[in-house]
């Protein structure tokens, strides 16, 4: 299809504001009399507050309020950023109060103060006297599930939050039918989003008595609902404003600070309060990525066909449920479309432990299971002596395949082309031959891994998106969406879509980037890589409606039937010839001021997308391993994606670059560490947590295989999260290729590599 704006690398609509320092983030809303909120955190991983005395803190000059668990509503609420479910059985687990009398991890919020400045607030925290009864900290799922272990939450036996899984076909029969059976155990680590902007929110009470919260969030409309629930007040009493957001990656698809910030302003008579986490706090008391252990058993036929797979998983969800119950399931659902097989049994256990809360993070369970499955398949291919790429190709999905459990259908699929492209980019065959007989301390190897993912959450979650367009007097438009720009570029691609439909340049589309729940249409927010695909449908619908109204209006002005007209380059034209009828601006002016027919043109649209689209892709990596020091260097890396039609290639490439960077960190360096006895965090800062620097990431190659997804108005599919998913297993498989050592645990940092090389007799 020929587009004029869609598919072009136009500049971001927010770029000028961001390079000049004018872009306003939550922390930039500075009011003169703004108070500062701070949280008192438990030094114990598992403890009951026996007694708490805040009198000294309250008496400190400059302290405006002190709150403890006794001052917060006795309402348990859930924090996960999901749409509300009318069916009580599908609601998120309500397992926390705003402040707690039982600490469930080191850093759990016990009390809070509001003071005139930061130092006074910090001083006040020190004056709060707490007596704890310390309980046994349960720091691994195994410890937590042990018979007789104390319960972290009273209503979850053996501390198991969820064990919901599935079985497709009959797994035991499949194993009997198979010629070979292979088994592996693999595990991933706890990592953190490390978006550059820490969690921050400000709140005040307006003159109508409503609570206004300015916050760094991916999900403003959900925040409104959850604050209402947590405080036990009508949801309409809460107004949430989302300005620029300095990255989220899922950690802001959760309601971490807003209920407490709301409570703080209420405690000081509605004065503005800012609650801003330090990096150290942000790393322990927002969200992390689940560490998951897998046991996989797979039956394969002689000719290399996958017959059946049994995956048992234990997911460490930390102290509160957050998204935990749905992440294990989402990971287990989105990967399975890639290699359809006769039987697949998935048995996940999501377990509470006394560690920081795991929640949504880019890929939502898929990076973990993809690491496990793609490593496992590589092991199988090696044992069978089959080329690992050929092995995968034998088992790949085709267009037309319908997921047997949720009915989602593969309508576009470019995975084979992605593989071919990746092979070519990395010069697979040539290098494979070259690296056959290596000697010396440094060894090179090649690896690859595939993935599948979805565009949004249908049919598990509601996929509602809203868009509103107003035609201005000059023929430009405002676009309002409930979907949130958090850096990924959604505002820009929406502007392109509108410009495409309306035949106007992108700079005539003014995107209102700030979401305000009082003003912006309803949309559930930035997660599940849903916005370009799902919100794009609403945006296209709204733009088409505006276009239709414009052409109808011209019909009234000119007696040329609307169906004979089109809009091109800001002109109303004859569809058949392109001959200009009149400028759009003239029409727009008439819609406002024609004394008889004036009727300003707007559209206000919602779209409930009961559909999904699968995306695919691949990472190819080349590594060099220092056999003596255990250092792994990624020399070359390529990601090739089928995300359907690419709306903005430059922005899309940027998404892939960032996702690959995050994947490299996941593979080689990143992990959150805790004292094995006490659960105290050891590296909750950006020096000791090894997020990659500019020197640690090689040049990243990106390519797209642009299929056309028929369910999307512009043929597009998800892209935001996917680039991270296949990176770690591709690197792991490359290390296996280079050294013959099969790593089964992330990250492959030098210490671990050293240990494993010793075990393998290489050192």
């Amino acid at each position, binding site marked *: 299809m020929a587009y004029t704006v869609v598919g072009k690398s136009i500049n971001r609509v927010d770029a000028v504001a961001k390079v000049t320092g004018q872009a306003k983030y939550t922390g930039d809303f500075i009011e003169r009399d703004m108070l500062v909120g701070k949280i008192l955190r438990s030094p114990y991983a598992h403890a009951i507050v026996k007694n708490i005395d805040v009198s000294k803190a309250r008496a400190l000059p400059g302290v405006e309020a002190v709150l403890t668990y006794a001052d917060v509503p006795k309402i348990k609420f859930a924090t996960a950023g999901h749409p509300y479910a009318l069916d009580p059985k599908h609601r998120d687990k309500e397992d926390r109060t705003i402040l707690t009398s039982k600490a469930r991890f080191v850093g759990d919020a016990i009390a809070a103060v509001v003071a005139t400045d930061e130092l006074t607030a910090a001083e006040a925290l020190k004056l709060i006297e707490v007596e704890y009864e310390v309980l046994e900290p349960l720091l691994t799922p195994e410890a937590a599930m042990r018979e007789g272990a104390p319960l972290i939450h009273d209503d979850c036996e053996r501390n198991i939050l969820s064990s919901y899984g599935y079985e497709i076909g009959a797994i035991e029969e499949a194993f009997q039918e198979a010629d070979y059976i292979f088994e592996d155990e693999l595990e991933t680590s706890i990592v953190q989003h490390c978006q550059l902007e820490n969690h921050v929110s400000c709140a005040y009470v307006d003159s109508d008595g409503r609570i206004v919260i300015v916050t760094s969030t991916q999900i403003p409309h959900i925040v409104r609902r959850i604050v209402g629930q947590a405080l036990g007040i009508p949801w309409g009493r809460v107004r949430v404003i989302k300005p620029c957001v300095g990255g989220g990656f899922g950690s802001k698809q959760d309601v971490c600070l807003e209920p407490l910030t709301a409570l703080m302003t209420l405690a000081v008579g509605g004065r503005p309060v800012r609650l801003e986490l330090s990096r150290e706090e942000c790393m322990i008391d927002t969200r992390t990525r689940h560490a998951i252990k897998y046991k996989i058993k797979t039956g394969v036929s002689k000719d290399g066909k996958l017959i059946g797979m049994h995956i048992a998983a234990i997911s460490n969800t930390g102290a509160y449920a957050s998204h935990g119950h749905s992440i294990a399931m989402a990971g287990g659902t989105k990967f399975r479309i890639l290699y359809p097989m006769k039987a697949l049994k998935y048995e996940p256990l999501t377990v509470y432990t006394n560690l920081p809360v795991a929640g949504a993070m880019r890929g939502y369970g898929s990076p973990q299971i993809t690491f496990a499955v793609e490593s496992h398949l590589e092991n199988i291919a090696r044992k069978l002596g089959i080329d690992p790429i050929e092995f995968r190709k034998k088992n790949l999905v085709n267009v037309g395949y319908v997921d047997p459990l949720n009915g989602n259908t593969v309508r576009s699929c470019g995975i084979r082309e992605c593989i071919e492209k990746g092979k070519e980019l990395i010069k697979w065959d040539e290098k494979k031959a070259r690296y056959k007989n290596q000697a010396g301390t440094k060894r090179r190897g090649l690896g690859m891994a595939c993935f599948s993912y979805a565009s949004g959450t249908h049919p598990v979650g509601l996929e509602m998106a809203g868009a509103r367009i107003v035609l201005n007097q000059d023929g430009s438009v405002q676009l309002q969406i409930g979907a949130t720009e958090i850096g990924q570029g959604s505002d820009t691609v929406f502007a392109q879509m509108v410009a495409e439909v309306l035949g106007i340049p992108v700079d005539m589309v003014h995107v209102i980037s700030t979401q305000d729940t009082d003003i912006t249409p309803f949309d559930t927010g930035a997660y599940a890589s849903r916005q370009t695909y799902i919100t794009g449908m609403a945006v296209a619908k709204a733009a088409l409606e505006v276009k239709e109204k414009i052409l109808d209006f011209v019909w009234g002005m000119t007696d040329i039937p609307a169906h004979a007209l089109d809009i091109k380059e800001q002109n109303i034209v004859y569809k058949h010839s392109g001959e200009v009828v009149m400028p759009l601006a003239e029409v727009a002016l008439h819609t406002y001021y024609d004394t008889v027919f004036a009727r300003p043109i707007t559209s206000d649209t919602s779209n409930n997308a009961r559909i999904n689209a699968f995306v695919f892709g691949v990472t190819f990596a080349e590594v060099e391993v220092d056999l003596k*020091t255990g250092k792994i260097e990624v020399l070359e890396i390529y990601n090739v994606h089928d995300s359907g039609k690419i709306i903005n290639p430059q922005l899309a490439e940027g998404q892939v670059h960032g996702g690959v960077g995050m994947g490299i960190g996941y593979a080689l360096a990143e992990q959150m560490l805790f004292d094995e006895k006490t659960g105290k965090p050891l*590296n909750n800062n950006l*020096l000791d947590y090894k997020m990659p620097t500019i020197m640690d990431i090689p040049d990243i190659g990106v390519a797209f295989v642009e299929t056309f997804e028929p369910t999307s108005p512009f043929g597009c599919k998800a892209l935001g999260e996917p680039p991270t998913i296949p990176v770690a297993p591709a690197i792991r498989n490359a290390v296996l290729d280079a050294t013959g050592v099969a790593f089964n645990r992330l990250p492959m940092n030098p210490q671990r590599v050293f*240990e494993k090389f010793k075990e393998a007799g290489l050192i």
Partner: protein
Amino acid sequence: MYNIKEYYEAATLEEATELLAANPNLTIIAGGTDVLIKMHHGQIEKAELLSIRKIKSLQGIRKLEDGTIIIGPLTTFTQVVNDPVIKDNIPVLAEAALSMGGPQIRNVATIGGNICNGATSADSASTLFALNARLKLQSKLGERVVPIQEFYLGPGKVDLKAGEILTEIIVAPGDYQGYGGHYIKFSMRKVMDIATLGVAVICKIKERNIFADVRIGLGVAGPTPLRCREAEAFAKGKTISRETIAEIGKLAVKSTKARTSWRASKEYREHLVEELTQRALKAAIVKAGGEEIA
């Protein structure tokens, strides 16, 4: 926001030593990158800071006529990296300085502060150990000079007595002239990181292939930076060969007191000492004019 109670600025060394003598609670701040981070973590509270950064006599690097190099403690890491005296005479120190932090930190952090902070991971320390650097310390009562090896007492603990200020870092001509050196910082990230191990090796070669002298300084191989005396003694007078170098690597481990922490195990650190000492030595040999050993 830092918990700063008072902030004094001294213009001269005399003024600084006077202030220090009068108020024992003063914490000296130069670049501030260590002191302020300690304050950030609450390790120093209600600080009374004495800024010495404007004291001219503590700045700059100079080479005396006899070849002695004097490094002012207020010299920033960026200045060390770019300084012609350092580059021409002890480039190994520039290598070490360049491995520290990132540009913003190097622009501010001082070499004197790095030493006085007392960390075993100090990026300048292992090299200064290898160079036999001496430190001049001055108080209102007078001055003294101590070898850097004696200055480090324990983790975060240095022999800086009440009222004293580090005024000079001294490298004698005999300790660098004719030597080639190499520094390896082994860390998880290539920049912005703390060393898992820092290895500084300098060596002097005679008769084309004989070690006249080898000096090995290690960081993070014990509670303080340290020297590998046994390996150094073994090396002296030996013919340069892969075998000799391998033995030096093995012996270097004997001087270490590595421990297991969450950052790395003792076993791994010792393995790295053996391996990286050899690598650093091989590079140092080439820089000292010797032949490359594969």
